[in-house]
């Protein structure tokens, strides 16, 4: 935090606003003490319900999101975001020095692969933490790194075999890798753990009965199919 205070002071003349959010479910006391002890002057919000976890789709901290003056996200890094990282600070300073019209619309390949590298380091460092593995696996999947994602999902599922998220994610990564049989098996495991999860069930159908989803989604068929499967599962 003191490092970000220095950063904020350095860029006070750049139409720049530093904000921090404490992802603290336990209330304001601990983050307030932390803020007061560190002497920061920029606002610190408290997100007790994990709103930003849901909005931004991450499950671990520290994270950073840089947004330009028109409200467009120009940089984001989930886990491993630190003022001590020279590459991170350099990217932010480049953005702050660039007029908004001159910023490229999409991230560079270098930035994406950097994120994947950091995630793989984190995955290795937290090899026995199922939540960390799951969170990194989801991020890797979103970055398009299906092979690394499959590995991390598999590890998360080994560590927590009751995690439908891990089994479902593994299936999705395997499906992207073209391993459809293994993908379906993994989705079915996820569905066994959470039989009422309609997202998992529909994902299986989408692969097994593509004609029911394209060119139009056949909702009447889904209702009948769901009733049939539920009845069969009730008998099993």
């Amino acid at each position: 935090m003191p490092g970000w205070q220095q950063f904020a002071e350095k860029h006070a003349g750049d139409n720049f606003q530093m904000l921090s959010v404490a992802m603290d479910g336990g209330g304001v006391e601990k983050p307030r003490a932390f803020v007061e002890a560190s002497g920061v002057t920029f606002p610190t919000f408290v997100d007790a319900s994990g709103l930003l976890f849901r909005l931004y789709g991450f499950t671990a901290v520290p994270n950073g999101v840089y947004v330009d003056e028109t409200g467009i996200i120009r940089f984001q890094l989930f886990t491993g975001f630190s003022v001590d990282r020279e590459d991170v600070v350099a990217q932010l300073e480049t953005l702050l020095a660039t007029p908004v019209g001159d910023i490229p619309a999409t991230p560079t390949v270098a930035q994406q692969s950097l994120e994947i590298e950091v995630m793989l380091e984190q995955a290795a460092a937290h090899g026995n933490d199922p939540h960390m593995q799951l969170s990194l696996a989801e991020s890797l999947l979103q970055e398009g790194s299906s092979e690394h994602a499959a590995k991390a999902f598999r590890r998360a599922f080994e560590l927590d075999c009751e995690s439908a998220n891990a089994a479902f994610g593994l299936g999705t990564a395997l499906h992207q890798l073209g391993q459809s049989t293994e993908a379906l098996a993994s989705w079915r495991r996820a569905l066994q753990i959470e039989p009422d999860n309609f997202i998992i069930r529909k994902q299986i159908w989408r692969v097994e009965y593509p004609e029911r989803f394209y060119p139009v989604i056949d909702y009447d068929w889904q209702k009948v199919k769901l009733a049939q499967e539920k009845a069969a599962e009730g008998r099993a």
Partner: protein
Amino acid sequence: MSVTLQRPEVGMEAPDFSLPDVYGKRWSWSQFRGKRVLLYMWASW
């Protein structure tokens, strides 16, 4: 379940939200429109 995660990407508009600060004062994201903002998310735990 978090399987339908739709994470905002670089190049997309940042999502709006409203949160209290450590003193209980409520802020909304849209108040900072027109500024370059760095949102730093951390935890005391």
